[in-house]
Protein backbone atom coordinates (compact mmCIF):
# COMPACT_ATOMS: atom_id res chain seq x y z
CA UNK A 1 0.00 0.00 0.00
CA UNK A 2 2.68 2.39 0.97
CA UNK A 3 4.54 1.55 -2.16
CA UNK A 4 1.55 2.38 -4.27
CA UNK A 5 1.07 5.71 -2.64
CA UNK A 6 4.60 6.52 -3.52
CA UNK A 7 3.92 5.84 -7.13
CA UNK A 8 0.94 8.17 -7.48
CA UNK A 9 2.91 11.25 -8.45
CA UNK A 10 4.46 10.00 -11.64
CA UNK A 11 2.39 6.93 -12.01
CA UNK A 12 3.15 6.10 -15.59
CA UNK A 13 6.88 6.34 -15.49
CA UNK A 14 7.00 4.52 -12.19
CA UNK A 15 4.81 1.74 -13.50
CA UNK A 16 6.85 1.31 -16.64
CA UNK A 17 10.20 1.28 -14.96
CA UNK A 18 9.11 -0.82 -12.02
CA UNK A 19 11.09 -3.99 -11.50
CA UNK A 20 9.19 -5.51 -8.57
CA UNK A 21 7.35 -8.88 -8.79
CA UNK A 22 4.08 -7.01 -9.41
CA UNK A 23 5.58 -5.77 -12.65
CA UNK A 24 3.06 -7.57 -14.83
CA UNK A 25 0.05 -6.09 -13.05
CA UNK A 26 1.59 -2.70 -13.26
CA UNK A 27 2.21 -3.04 -16.94
CA UNK A 28 -1.43 -4.03 -17.39
CA UNK A 29 -2.45 -0.91 -15.48
CA UNK A 30 -0.18 1.21 -17.56
CA UNK A 31 -1.68 0.03 -20.79
CA UNK A 32 -5.18 0.57 -19.39
CA UNK A 33 -4.30 4.11 -18.49
CA UNK A 34 -2.60 4.61 -21.83
CA UNK A 35 -5.86 3.78 -23.52
CA UNK A 36 -7.31 6.82 -21.83
CA UNK A 37 -4.84 9.24 -23.37
CA UNK A 38 -6.63 9.72 -26.71
CA UNK A 39 -9.62 10.82 -24.62
CA UNK A 40 -8.21 14.32 -24.22
CA UNK A 41 -7.96 14.77 -27.95
CA UNK A 42 -11.39 13.24 -28.63
CA UNK A 43 -12.95 15.50 -26.02
CA UNK A 44 -11.62 18.65 -27.65
CA UNK A 45 -13.18 17.47 -30.91
CA UNK A 46 -16.59 16.80 -29.36
CA UNK A 47 -19.05 19.48 -30.36
CA UNK A 48 -22.07 18.80 -28.25
CA UNK A 49 -23.18 16.99 -25.14
CA UNK A 50 -24.08 13.80 -26.98
CA UNK A 51 -20.61 13.58 -28.48
CA UNK A 52 -18.94 14.38 -25.15
CA UNK A 53 -20.89 11.66 -23.37
CA UNK A 54 -20.25 9.19 -26.17
CA UNK A 55 -16.51 9.93 -26.10
CA UNK A 56 -16.31 9.45 -22.33
CA UNK A 57 -18.25 6.25 -22.42
CA UNK A 58 -16.21 4.78 -25.25
CA UNK A 59 -12.79 5.55 -23.78
CA UNK A 60 -13.56 4.59 -20.19
CA UNK A 61 -15.25 1.34 -21.13
CA UNK A 62 -12.38 0.53 -23.45
CA UNK A 63 -9.76 1.28 -20.79
CA UNK A 64 -11.30 -0.55 -17.83
CA UNK A 65 -13.87 -2.94 -19.21
CA UNK A 66 -16.03 -2.18 -16.18
CA UNK A 67 -19.72 -1.22 -16.19
CA UNK A 68 -19.87 2.56 -16.26
CA UNK A 69 -22.41 5.26 -15.46
CA UNK A 70 -22.27 8.91 -16.43
CA UNK A 71 -24.58 11.13 -14.41
CA UNK A 72 -24.94 14.83 -15.16
CA UNK A 73 -26.36 17.34 -12.71
CA UNK A 74 -29.60 19.05 -13.52
CA UNK A 75 -30.25 21.55 -10.78
CA UNK A 76 -29.88 19.63 -7.52
CA UNK A 77 -30.51 16.29 -9.18
CA UNK A 78 -28.36 13.89 -11.07
CA UNK A 79 -29.70 12.59 -14.35
CA UNK A 80 -28.44 9.46 -16.08
CA UNK A 81 -26.76 10.27 -19.39
CA UNK A 82 -25.17 6.89 -19.87
CA UNK A 83 -25.39 3.58 -18.10
CA UNK A 84 -23.71 0.38 -19.31
CA UNK A 85 -26.28 -2.29 -20.15
CA UNK A 86 -24.72 -4.60 -17.56
CA UNK A 87 -24.88 -2.03 -14.78
CA UNK A 88 -27.84 -2.08 -12.38
CA UNK A 89 -27.86 1.44 -11.00
CA UNK A 90 -29.72 1.44 -7.68
CA UNK A 91 -30.61 3.96 -5.00
CA UNK A 92 -27.40 3.41 -3.08
CA UNK A 93 -25.35 4.09 -6.21
CA UNK A 94 -27.23 7.36 -6.67
CA UNK A 95 -26.51 8.23 -3.05
CA UNK A 96 -22.83 7.50 -3.64
CA UNK A 97 -22.80 9.69 -6.75
CA UNK A 98 -24.60 12.55 -4.99
CA UNK A 99 -22.15 12.40 -2.13
CA UNK A 100 -19.20 12.49 -4.55
CA UNK A 101 -20.68 15.58 -6.15
CA UNK A 102 -21.30 17.21 -2.76
CA UNK A 103 -17.88 16.42 -1.31
CA UNK A 104 -16.03 17.12 -4.55
CA UNK A 105 -14.01 13.93 -4.20
CA UNK A 106 -14.19 10.24 -5.00
CA UNK A 107 -16.72 8.37 -2.86
CA UNK A 108 -17.68 4.69 -2.55
CA UNK A 109 -15.88 1.39 -2.85
CA UNK A 110 -12.25 1.65 -1.75
CA UNK A 111 -12.64 5.06 -0.09
CA UNK A 112 -13.32 6.19 3.46
CA UNK A 113 -16.83 7.38 2.49
CA UNK A 114 -19.39 4.63 1.87
CA UNK A 115 -16.64 1.97 1.57
CA UNK A 116 -19.26 -0.82 1.45
CA UNK A 117 -20.78 0.48 -1.74
CA UNK A 118 -20.34 -1.67 -4.84
CA UNK A 119 -19.73 1.41 -6.92
CA UNK A 120 -17.27 4.22 -6.83
CA UNK A 121 -18.02 7.71 -8.20
CA UNK A 122 -15.63 10.47 -9.23
CA UNK A 123 -17.11 13.97 -9.39
CA UNK A 124 -16.92 16.01 -12.57
CA UNK A 125 -15.67 19.26 -11.05
CA UNK A 126 -15.21 22.57 -12.81
CA UNK A 127 -14.53 26.16 -11.79
CA UNK A 128 -18.30 26.67 -12.00
CA UNK A 129 -18.93 23.84 -9.56
CA UNK A 130 -19.69 20.15 -10.18
CA UNK A 131 -21.46 19.17 -13.40
CA UNK A 132 -21.96 15.50 -12.62
CA UNK A 133 -20.17 12.29 -11.76
CA UNK A 134 -18.66 9.24 -13.42
CA UNK A 135 -18.90 5.95 -11.65
CA UNK A 136 -17.86 2.32 -11.99
CA UNK A 137 -19.55 -0.67 -10.46
CA UNK A 138 -18.26 -4.20 -10.37
CA UNK A 139 -18.65 -7.51 -8.57
CA UNK A 140 -15.94 -8.58 -6.21
CA UNK A 141 -14.73 -11.17 -8.73
CA UNK A 142 -14.26 -8.56 -11.47
CA UNK A 143 -10.93 -6.86 -11.71
CA UNK A 144 -11.35 -3.53 -9.99
CA UNK A 145 -9.48 -0.30 -10.62
CA UNK A 146 -6.20 -0.25 -8.74
CA UNK A 147 -5.89 2.52 -6.20
CA UNK A 148 -2.91 3.80 -8.10
CA UNK A 149 -5.05 4.30 -11.18
CA UNK A 150 -7.62 6.50 -9.48
CA UNK A 151 -5.63 9.75 -9.63
CA UNK A 152 -5.36 9.30 -13.38
CA UNK A 153 -9.08 8.59 -13.63
CA UNK A 154 -9.72 11.73 -11.58
CA UNK A 155 -7.46 13.72 -13.83
CA UNK A 156 -9.39 12.59 -16.88
CA UNK A 157 -12.65 13.21 -15.06
CA UNK A 158 -11.60 16.82 -14.64
CA UNK A 159 -10.95 17.15 -18.35
CA UNK A 160 -14.28 15.48 -19.02
CA UNK A 161 -15.94 17.94 -16.64
CA UNK A 162 -14.57 20.86 -18.63
CA UNK A 163 -15.81 19.31 -21.85
CA UNK A 164 -19.26 18.82 -20.31
CA UNK A 165 -19.29 22.42 -19.13
CA UNK A 166 -18.20 23.63 -22.55
CA UNK A 167 -20.95 21.60 -24.24
CA UNK A 168 -23.47 22.91 -21.73
CA UNK A 169 -22.48 26.52 -22.32
CA UNK A 170 -22.61 25.84 -26.03
CA UNK A 171 -26.15 24.53 -25.72
CA UNK A 172 -27.16 27.57 -23.69
CA UNK A 173 -25.66 29.93 -26.24
CA UNK A 174 -27.47 28.11 -29.02
CA UNK A 175 -30.77 28.29 -27.18
CA UNK A 176 -30.24 31.97 -26.52
CA UNK A 177 -29.45 32.57 -30.18
CA UNK A 178 -32.54 30.63 -31.27
CA UNK A 179 -34.63 32.57 -28.79
CA UNK A 180 -33.35 35.90 -29.93
CA UNK A 181 -33.88 34.87 -33.55
CA UNK A 182 -37.42 33.77 -32.71
CA UNK A 183 -37.89 36.99 -30.82
CA UNK A 184 -36.73 39.02 -33.80
CA UNK A 185 -38.99 37.03 -36.10
CA UNK A 186 -41.92 37.53 -33.80
CA UNK A 187 -41.33 41.25 -33.65
CA UNK A 188 -41.03 41.42 -37.43
CA UNK A 189 -44.23 39.42 -37.68
CA UNK A 190 -46.14 41.69 -35.31
CA UNK A 191 -44.94 44.84 -37.04
CA UNK A 192 -45.77 43.40 -40.38
CA UNK A 193 -49.19 42.14 -39.34
CA UNK A 194 -50.26 45.29 -37.64
CA UNK A 195 -49.25 47.26 -40.71
CA UNK A 196 -50.58 44.81 -43.27
CA UNK A 197 -53.85 44.21 -41.49
CA UNK A 198 -54.58 47.77 -40.51
CA UNK A 199 -53.98 49.22 -43.94
CA UNK A 200 -56.57 47.15 -45.79
CA UNK A 201 -58.95 47.39 -42.83
CA UNK A 202 -58.68 51.16 -42.94
CA UNK A 203 -59.66 51.13 -46.63
CA UNK A 204 -62.52 48.73 -46.02
CA UNK A 205 -63.97 50.57 -43.07
CA UNK A 206 -63.47 53.86 -44.84
CA UNK A 207 -65.20 52.71 -48.01
CA UNK A 208 -68.10 51.08 -46.20
CA UNK A 209 -68.69 54.06 -43.94
CA UNK A 210 -68.78 56.36 -46.95
CA UNK A 211 -71.48 54.15 -48.44
CA UNK A 212 -73.37 53.86 -45.16
CA UNK A 213 -73.53 57.40 -43.92
CA UNK A 214 -76.55 58.74 -45.64
CA UNK A 215 -75.49 62.31 -45.71
CA UNK A 216 -72.61 61.67 -48.00
CA UNK A 217 -74.09 58.57 -49.62
CA UNK A 218 -76.68 60.74 -51.34
CA UNK A 219 -74.06 62.82 -53.05
CA UNK A 220 -72.14 59.79 -54.36
CA UNK A 221 -72.51 59.13 -58.03
CA UNK A 222 -72.58 55.64 -59.47
CA UNK A 223 -68.90 55.73 -60.47
CA UNK A 224 -67.77 56.69 -56.96
CA UNK A 225 -69.93 54.00 -55.42
CA UNK A 226 -68.39 51.37 -57.65
CA UNK A 227 -64.95 52.66 -56.87
CA UNK A 228 -65.57 52.40 -53.11
CA UNK A 229 -67.01 48.91 -53.37
CA UNK A 230 -64.16 47.72 -55.60
CA UNK A 231 -61.61 49.08 -53.15
CA UNK A 232 -63.22 47.39 -50.18
CA UNK A 233 -63.46 44.10 -52.06
CA UNK A 234 -59.84 44.15 -53.25
CA UNK A 235 -58.55 45.01 -49.79
CA UNK A 236 -60.61 42.26 -48.20
CA UNK A 237 -59.13 39.79 -50.70
CA UNK A 238 -55.69 41.03 -49.70
CA UNK A 239 -56.45 40.40 -46.05
CA UNK A 240 -57.63 36.92 -46.90
CA UNK A 241 -54.45 36.20 -48.85
CA UNK A 242 -52.35 37.43 -45.95
CA UNK A 243 -54.17 35.27 -43.46
CA UNK A 244 -53.86 32.22 -45.70
CA UNK A 245 -50.12 32.73 -45.90
CA UNK A 246 -49.80 33.19 -42.15
CA UNK A 247 -51.72 30.00 -41.48
CA UNK A 248 -49.67 28.05 -44.00
CA UNK A 249 -46.46 29.35 -42.49
CA UNK A 250 -47.49 28.34 -39.00
CA UNK A 251 -48.55 24.90 -40.23
CA UNK A 252 -45.23 24.48 -42.02
CA UNK A 253 -43.34 25.64 -38.93
CA UNK A 254 -45.26 23.30 -36.69
CA UNK A 255 -44.59 20.46 -39.13
CA UNK A 256 -48.27 19.52 -39.20
CA UNK A 257 -48.75 20.03 -42.91
CA UNK A 258 -49.53 16.61 -44.37
CA UNK A 259 -48.06 15.95 -47.83
CA UNK A 260 -50.28 13.61 -49.86
CA UNK A 261 -48.33 12.24 -52.80
CA UNK A 262 -50.37 11.24 -55.84
CA UNK A 263 -49.33 10.87 -59.44
CA UNK A 264 -50.33 14.25 -60.89
CA UNK A 265 -50.74 15.69 -64.35
CA UNK A 266 -48.40 18.68 -64.48
CA UNK A 267 -50.63 20.47 -66.97
CA UNK A 268 -53.54 20.02 -64.59
CA UNK A 269 -51.53 21.55 -61.76
CA UNK A 270 -50.70 24.58 -63.90
CA UNK A 271 -54.31 24.90 -65.02
CA UNK A 272 -55.58 24.78 -61.46
CA UNK A 273 -53.08 27.47 -60.41
CA UNK A 274 -54.20 29.77 -63.25
CA UNK A 275 -57.83 29.12 -62.34
CA UNK A 276 -57.19 29.92 -58.70
CA UNK A 277 -55.43 33.18 -59.52
CA UNK A 278 -58.58 34.14 -61.42
CA UNK A 279 -58.82 37.91 -61.10
CA UNK A 280 -55.31 39.15 -61.80
CA UNK A 281 -54.70 36.71 -64.65
CA UNK A 282 -57.75 37.82 -66.52
CA UNK A 283 -56.18 41.20 -67.12
CA UNK A 284 -52.69 39.86 -67.79
CA UNK A 285 -51.85 37.00 -70.05
CA UNK A 286 -49.62 34.24 -68.77
CA UNK A 287 -47.71 32.21 -71.29
CA UNK A 288 -47.65 28.50 -70.60
CA UNK A 289 -44.76 26.63 -72.09
CA UNK A 290 -44.68 22.91 -71.41
CA UNK A 291 -43.09 20.10 -73.30
CA UNK A 292 -45.64 17.61 -74.62
CA UNK A 293 -45.85 14.25 -72.89
CA UNK A 294 -44.70 15.44 -69.48
CA UNK A 295 -44.88 12.39 -67.23
CA UNK A 296 -47.18 12.14 -64.24
CA UNK A 297 -45.20 13.16 -61.19
CA UNK A 298 -45.76 12.15 -57.56
CA UNK A 299 -46.72 15.28 -55.64
CA UNK A 300 -49.34 16.84 -53.45
CA UNK A 301 -51.62 18.49 -55.98
CA UNK A 302 -52.99 21.18 -53.67
CA UNK A 303 -49.61 22.17 -52.25
CA UNK A 304 -47.85 22.45 -55.61
CA UNK A 305 -50.75 24.50 -56.97
CA UNK A 306 -50.19 26.79 -54.05
CA UNK A 307 -46.49 27.14 -54.81
CA UNK A 308 -47.36 28.14 -58.38
CA UNK A 309 -50.06 30.56 -57.24
CA UNK A 310 -47.62 32.30 -54.92
CA UNK A 311 -44.91 32.50 -57.57
CA UNK A 312 -47.31 33.77 -60.24
CA UNK A 313 -48.84 36.25 -57.83
CA UNK A 314 -45.37 37.66 -57.14
CA UNK A 315 -44.48 37.74 -60.81
CA UNK A 316 -47.66 39.66 -61.64
CA UNK A 317 -47.24 42.01 -58.69
CA UNK A 318 -43.65 42.95 -59.34
CA UNK A 319 -43.66 43.40 -63.09
CA UNK A 320 -45.17 46.17 -65.26
CA UNK A 321 -48.66 45.83 -66.71
CA UNK A 322 -48.72 43.96 -70.01
CA UNK A 323 -45.21 42.61 -69.61
CA UNK A 324 -44.44 38.95 -70.03
CA UNK A 325 -45.14 36.39 -67.34
CA UNK A 326 -44.49 32.79 -68.28
CA UNK A 327 -44.53 29.30 -66.82
CA UNK A 328 -42.14 26.68 -68.15
CA UNK A 329 -42.26 23.04 -67.21
CA UNK A 330 -39.93 20.29 -68.29
CA UNK A 331 -38.29 17.16 -67.02
CA UNK A 332 -34.58 17.46 -66.55
CA UNK A 333 -32.77 14.34 -65.46
CA UNK A 334 -34.74 12.77 -62.63
CA UNK A 335 -36.57 15.96 -61.77
CA UNK A 336 -39.58 17.91 -62.83
CA UNK A 337 -38.51 21.51 -63.25
CA UNK A 338 -41.07 24.32 -63.21
CA UNK A 339 -40.05 27.95 -63.71
CA UNK A 340 -41.98 31.18 -63.41
CA UNK A 341 -40.48 34.06 -65.39
CA UNK A 342 -41.24 37.74 -65.30
CA UNK A 343 -39.95 40.92 -66.92
CA UNK A 344 -39.98 42.96 -63.73
CA UNK A 345 -37.21 44.92 -62.16
CA UNK A 346 -35.61 41.75 -60.89
CA UNK A 347 -33.97 40.89 -57.61
CA UNK A 348 -30.50 42.32 -56.90
CA UNK A 349 -27.79 39.66 -57.08
CA UNK A 350 -27.09 39.91 -53.33
CA UNK A 351 -30.72 39.17 -52.44
CA UNK A 352 -31.23 36.10 -54.64
CA UNK A 353 -30.89 33.79 -51.68
CA UNK A 354 -32.36 35.87 -48.90
CA UNK A 355 -35.69 36.40 -50.68
CA UNK A 356 -36.65 32.93 -49.49
CA UNK A 357 -36.28 33.93 -45.85
CA UNK A 358 -39.26 34.88 -43.77
CA UNK A 359 -40.37 38.52 -43.78
CA UNK A 360 -37.87 39.34 -46.48
CA UNK A 361 -39.33 41.51 -49.18
CA UNK A 362 -36.04 42.34 -50.83
CA UNK A 363 -35.80 46.09 -51.06
CA UNK A 364 -39.42 46.39 -51.99
CA UNK A 365 -41.72 48.32 -49.78
CA UNK A 366 -44.85 50.33 -50.10
CA UNK A 367 -47.59 49.95 -52.62
CA UNK A 368 -47.70 46.33 -53.64
CA UNK A 369 -48.20 45.29 -50.06
CA UNK A 370 -47.40 41.87 -48.73
CA UNK A 371 -45.67 40.50 -45.77
CA UNK A 372 -42.72 38.65 -47.26
CA UNK A 373 -43.99 35.18 -46.53
CA UNK A 374 -44.91 33.99 -50.02
CA UNK A 375 -41.48 32.79 -51.12
CA UNK A 376 -40.54 31.26 -47.79
CA UNK A 377 -43.79 29.28 -47.91
CA UNK A 378 -42.93 28.13 -51.43
CA UNK A 379 -39.54 27.02 -50.17
CA UNK A 380 -41.12 25.12 -47.28
CA UNK A 381 -43.65 23.43 -49.57
CA UNK A 382 -41.07 22.49 -52.20
CA UNK A 383 -38.73 21.12 -49.57
CA UNK A 384 -41.57 19.08 -48.13
CA UNK A 385 -41.47 17.34 -51.54
CA UNK A 386 -37.67 16.92 -51.33
CA UNK A 387 -37.34 19.47 -54.10
CA UNK A 388 -35.23 22.61 -54.48
CA UNK A 389 -36.13 26.21 -55.28
CA UNK A 390 -33.92 29.06 -56.41
CA UNK A 391 -34.04 32.49 -58.01
CA UNK A 392 -32.05 33.79 -60.96
CA UNK A 393 -31.77 37.16 -62.66
CA UNK A 394 -32.91 37.34 -66.28
CA UNK A 395 -31.07 39.23 -68.94
CA UNK A 396 -31.54 42.21 -69.24
CA UNK A 397 -34.12 42.37 -66.45
CA UNK A 398 -36.62 40.24 -64.64
CA UNK A 399 -36.56 37.15 -62.48
CA UNK A 400 -36.80 33.41 -63.00
CA UNK A 401 -37.81 31.33 -60.03
CA UNK A 402 -37.40 27.62 -60.55
CA UNK A 403 -38.40 24.72 -58.39
CA UNK A 404 -37.89 21.03 -58.82
CA UNK A 405 -39.76 17.96 -57.71
CA UNK A 406 -38.02 14.60 -57.92
CA UNK A 407 -39.70 12.11 -60.28
CA UNK A 408 -39.23 9.27 -57.82
Amino acid at each position, binding site marked *: MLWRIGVIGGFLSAALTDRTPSRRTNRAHASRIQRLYPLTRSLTLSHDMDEVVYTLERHFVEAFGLPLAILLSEGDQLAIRFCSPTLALDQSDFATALMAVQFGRRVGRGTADLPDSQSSFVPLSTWQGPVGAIGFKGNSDQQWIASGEWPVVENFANQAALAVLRARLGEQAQRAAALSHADKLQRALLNSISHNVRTPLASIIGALSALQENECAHTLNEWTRRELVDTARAEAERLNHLLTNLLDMSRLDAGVLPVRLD*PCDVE*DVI*GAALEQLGGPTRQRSIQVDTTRDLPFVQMDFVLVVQVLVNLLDNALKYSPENSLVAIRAQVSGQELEISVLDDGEGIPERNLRSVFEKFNRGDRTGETGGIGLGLSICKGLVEAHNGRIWAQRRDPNGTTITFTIPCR
Partner: protein
Amino acid sequence: MLVIDDEPAIRRFLRASLGACGYELYEAATGRDGIQSVPMHHPDIVILDLGLPDMDGLDVIRSLREWTQTPILILSVREQESDKILALDAGADDYLTKPFGVGELVARIRAALRRIRTPETGAVFTAGDLEVDLARRMVLLNSRKVQLTPTEYDLLKVLIRHVDKVLTHRQLIREVWGGTCYEDEMHLLRVNVSNLRRKLEADSARPRRILTEPGVGYRLRAES
Protein backbone atom coordinates in the same frame (compact mmCIF):
# COMPACT_ATOMS: atom_id res chain seq x y z
CA MET B 1 -83.89 27.71 -48.83
CA LEU B 2 -82.46 26.86 -45.45
CA VAL B 3 -79.20 28.19 -44.05
CA ILE B 4 -77.61 26.22 -41.20
CA ASP B 5 -74.73 28.29 -39.84
CA ASP B 6 -73.88 29.34 -36.31
CA GLU B 7 -72.28 32.63 -37.39
CA PRO B 8 -74.92 35.42 -37.17
CA ALA B 9 -72.80 37.63 -39.45
CA ILE B 10 -72.81 35.01 -42.21
CA ARG B 11 -76.57 34.43 -41.83
CA ARG B 12 -77.18 38.16 -41.97
CA PHE B 13 -75.06 38.53 -45.09
CA LEU B 14 -76.81 35.58 -46.77
CA ARG B 15 -80.24 36.89 -45.77
CA ALA B 16 -79.48 40.28 -47.31
CA SER B 17 -77.84 39.07 -50.49
CA LEU B 18 -79.97 36.00 -51.26
CA GLY B 19 -83.10 37.91 -50.25
CA ALA B 20 -82.18 40.54 -52.83
CA CYS B 21 -81.94 37.78 -55.44
CA GLY B 22 -85.54 36.79 -54.63
CA TYR B 23 -84.87 33.67 -52.55
CA GLU B 24 -86.87 33.03 -49.40
CA LEU B 25 -84.58 32.16 -46.51
CA TYR B 26 -85.05 30.09 -43.35
CA GLU B 27 -82.29 30.07 -40.78
CA ALA B 28 -80.93 27.66 -38.19
CA ALA B 29 -77.98 28.24 -35.90
CA THR B 30 -77.44 24.63 -34.87
CA GLY B 31 -77.39 21.26 -36.58
CA ARG B 32 -80.32 20.01 -34.52
CA ASP B 33 -82.50 23.02 -35.44
CA GLY B 34 -81.45 22.60 -39.04
CA ILE B 35 -82.43 18.94 -39.21
CA GLN B 36 -85.84 19.77 -37.69
CA SER B 37 -86.40 22.70 -40.07
CA VAL B 38 -86.08 20.64 -43.23
CA PRO B 39 -89.34 18.63 -42.86
CA MET B 40 -91.06 21.75 -41.56
CA HIS B 41 -90.23 24.15 -44.42
CA HIS B 42 -89.24 21.73 -47.21
CA PRO B 43 -86.56 24.02 -48.61
CA ASP B 44 -85.41 23.59 -52.22
CA ILE B 45 -81.82 23.66 -51.06
CA VAL B 46 -79.89 23.46 -47.78
CA ILE B 47 -76.81 25.60 -47.23
CA LEU B 48 -74.81 23.95 -44.46
CA ASP B 49 -71.76 25.17 -42.59
CA LEU B 50 -69.48 22.25 -41.69
CA GLY B 51 -68.26 23.76 -38.42
CA LEU B 52 -71.34 23.71 -36.21
CA PRO B 53 -71.24 24.03 -32.43
CA ASP B 54 -73.60 21.21 -31.47
CA MET B 55 -72.86 18.46 -33.95
CA ASP B 56 -70.64 17.42 -36.82
CA GLY B 57 -71.83 18.79 -40.15
CA LEU B 58 -71.23 15.32 -41.61
CA ASP B 59 -73.87 13.89 -39.29
CA VAL B 60 -76.32 16.54 -40.45
CA ILE B 61 -75.76 15.40 -44.03
CA ARG B 62 -76.12 11.71 -43.14
CA SER B 63 -79.24 12.35 -41.13
CA LEU B 64 -80.87 14.33 -43.98
CA ARG B 65 -79.82 11.83 -46.61
CA GLU B 66 -81.72 9.12 -44.76
CA TRP B 67 -84.95 10.51 -46.12
CA THR B 68 -84.44 13.42 -48.50
CA GLN B 69 -82.50 14.20 -51.68
CA THR B 70 -82.77 17.97 -51.20
CA PRO B 71 -79.52 19.44 -52.54
CA ILE B 72 -77.01 20.28 -49.81
CA LEU B 73 -74.42 22.98 -50.40
CA ILE B 74 -71.49 22.93 -47.99
CA LEU B 75 -69.74 26.01 -46.63
CA SER B 76 -66.29 25.31 -45.24
CA VAL B 77 -62.98 26.97 -44.57
CA ARG B 78 -59.89 26.07 -46.52
CA GLU B 79 -58.29 24.05 -43.75
CA GLN B 80 -61.08 21.49 -43.87
CA GLU B 81 -59.95 19.90 -47.14
CA SER B 82 -60.56 16.34 -46.03
CA ASP B 83 -63.88 17.20 -44.33
CA LYS B 84 -65.05 18.60 -47.63
CA ILE B 85 -64.36 15.31 -49.40
CA LEU B 86 -66.06 13.36 -46.62
CA ALA B 87 -69.07 15.65 -46.88
CA LEU B 88 -69.34 15.15 -50.63
CA ASP B 89 -68.92 11.41 -50.26
CA ALA B 90 -71.63 11.45 -47.58
CA GLY B 91 -74.07 12.96 -50.07
CA ALA B 92 -73.54 16.71 -50.14
CA ASP B 93 -73.97 18.16 -53.62
CA ASP B 94 -71.42 20.92 -53.74
CA TYR B 95 -69.19 23.09 -51.62
CA LEU B 96 -67.96 26.65 -51.32
CA THR B 97 -64.89 27.72 -49.45
CA LYS B 98 -65.22 30.70 -47.12
CA PRO B 99 -64.75 33.49 -47.93
CA PHE B 100 -66.80 33.42 -51.13
CA GLY B 101 -68.59 35.94 -53.29
CA VAL B 102 -72.35 36.11 -53.76
CA GLY B 103 -71.99 35.58 -57.50
CA GLU B 104 -70.31 32.25 -56.93
CA LEU B 105 -72.89 31.20 -54.36
CA VAL B 106 -75.84 32.04 -56.59
CA ALA B 107 -74.24 30.16 -59.49
CA ARG B 108 -73.89 27.03 -57.34
CA ILE B 109 -77.47 27.35 -56.07
CA ARG B 110 -78.80 27.69 -59.61
CA ALA B 111 -76.80 24.70 -60.81
CA ALA B 112 -78.08 22.56 -57.93
CA LEU B 113 -81.68 23.62 -58.55
CA ARG B 114 -81.33 22.97 -62.27
CA ARG B 115 -80.13 19.44 -61.53
CA ILE B 116 -83.17 18.57 -59.43
CA ARG B 117 -85.60 20.16 -61.86
CA THR B 118 -84.24 18.21 -64.83
CA PRO B 119 -83.26 14.98 -63.11
CA GLU B 120 -82.79 12.96 -66.30
CA THR B 121 -80.30 14.28 -68.78
CA GLY B 122 -81.76 13.88 -72.23
CA ALA B 123 -80.37 11.57 -74.84
CA VAL B 124 -78.20 14.35 -76.18
CA PHE B 125 -75.99 16.58 -74.03
CA THR B 126 -74.80 19.86 -75.49
CA ALA B 127 -72.41 22.41 -74.07
CA GLY B 128 -71.11 24.99 -76.53
CA ASP B 129 -69.63 23.15 -79.49
CA LEU B 130 -69.57 19.83 -77.65
CA GLU B 131 -72.35 17.39 -78.38
CA VAL B 132 -72.67 13.98 -76.78
CA ASP B 133 -75.31 11.57 -78.07
CA LEU B 134 -75.73 9.24 -75.11
CA ALA B 135 -78.02 6.84 -76.98
CA ARG B 136 -75.61 6.32 -79.84
CA ARG B 137 -72.42 6.71 -77.78
CA MET B 138 -71.24 9.44 -80.09
CA VAL B 139 -69.17 12.52 -79.22
CA LEU B 140 -69.05 15.48 -81.58
CA LEU B 141 -66.85 18.53 -81.21
CA ASN B 142 -67.53 21.28 -83.73
CA SER B 143 -69.72 18.70 -85.50
CA ARG B 144 -66.64 16.51 -85.96
CA LYS B 145 -66.58 13.05 -84.47
CA VAL B 146 -64.17 12.53 -81.56
CA GLN B 147 -62.77 9.06 -80.88
CA LEU B 148 -62.84 8.17 -77.20
CA THR B 149 -61.69 4.99 -75.54
CA PRO B 150 -64.45 3.09 -73.68
CA THR B 151 -63.07 4.30 -70.32
CA GLU B 152 -62.87 7.91 -71.48
CA TYR B 153 -66.44 7.68 -72.70
CA ASP B 154 -67.64 6.18 -69.39
CA LEU B 155 -65.89 8.92 -67.48
CA LEU B 156 -67.46 11.59 -69.67
CA LYS B 157 -70.87 9.97 -69.24
CA VAL B 158 -70.60 10.06 -65.44
CA LEU B 159 -69.52 13.70 -65.56
CA ILE B 160 -72.48 14.50 -67.84
CA ARG B 161 -74.90 12.72 -65.53
CA HIS B 162 -73.72 15.04 -62.74
CA VAL B 163 -73.11 18.10 -64.85
CA ASP B 164 -72.07 21.20 -62.85
CA LYS B 165 -71.65 19.12 -59.73
CA VAL B 166 -68.31 18.42 -58.18
CA LEU B 167 -67.51 14.71 -58.11
CA THR B 168 -64.87 13.47 -55.70
CA HIS B 169 -62.07 11.25 -56.93
CA ARG B 170 -63.62 8.40 -54.98
CA GLN B 171 -67.07 8.89 -56.51
CA LEU B 172 -65.64 8.92 -60.01
CA ILE B 173 -63.50 5.86 -59.40
CA ARG B 174 -66.49 4.00 -57.99
CA GLU B 175 -68.77 4.92 -60.88
CA VAL B 176 -66.30 4.37 -63.71
CA TRP B 177 -64.18 1.48 -62.49
CA GLY B 178 -66.40 0.18 -59.73
CA GLY B 179 -63.20 -0.15 -57.79
CA THR B 180 -62.13 0.58 -54.28
CA CYS B 181 -58.37 0.39 -54.71
CA TYR B 182 -57.86 4.08 -54.48
CA GLU B 183 -54.10 4.39 -55.08
CA ASP B 184 -53.94 2.57 -58.43
CA GLU B 185 -57.15 3.94 -59.82
CA MET B 186 -56.31 7.49 -58.85
CA HIS B 187 -53.56 7.30 -61.45
CA LEU B 188 -55.95 5.88 -64.06
CA LEU B 189 -58.43 8.64 -63.30
CA ARG B 190 -55.84 11.38 -63.77
CA VAL B 191 -54.57 9.85 -67.01
CA ASN B 192 -58.08 9.55 -68.44
CA VAL B 193 -59.03 13.09 -67.44
CA SER B 194 -55.84 14.30 -69.04
CA ASN B 195 -56.63 12.40 -72.26
CA LEU B 196 -60.24 13.61 -72.31
CA ARG B 197 -59.03 17.16 -72.00
CA ARG B 198 -56.57 16.74 -74.86
CA LYS B 199 -59.47 15.60 -77.01
CA LEU B 200 -62.17 17.99 -75.84
CA GLU B 201 -60.48 21.17 -74.62
CA ALA B 202 -59.10 23.91 -76.84
CA ASP B 203 -56.18 24.39 -74.43
CA SER B 204 -55.67 21.50 -72.06
CA ALA B 205 -53.53 23.62 -69.72
CA ARG B 206 -56.50 25.93 -69.24
CA PRO B 207 -59.51 23.63 -69.28
CA ARG B 208 -62.89 25.28 -69.71
CA ARG B 209 -65.07 22.16 -69.60
CA ILE B 210 -63.58 19.59 -67.27
CA LEU B 211 -62.50 21.61 -64.28
CA THR B 212 -60.19 20.47 -61.51
CA GLU B 213 -61.29 21.04 -57.94
CA PRO B 214 -57.83 20.91 -56.30
CA GLY B 215 -57.56 18.09 -53.81
CA VAL B 216 -61.24 17.18 -54.18
CA GLY B 217 -62.19 16.02 -57.66
CA TYR B 218 -63.56 17.22 -61.01
CA ARG B 219 -66.56 19.09 -62.32
CA LEU B 220 -68.02 19.27 -65.81
CA ARG B 221 -69.20 22.74 -66.71
CA ALA B 222 -72.52 22.97 -68.53
CA GLU B 223 -71.66 26.20 -70.32
CA SER B 224 -68.20 26.79 -71.61
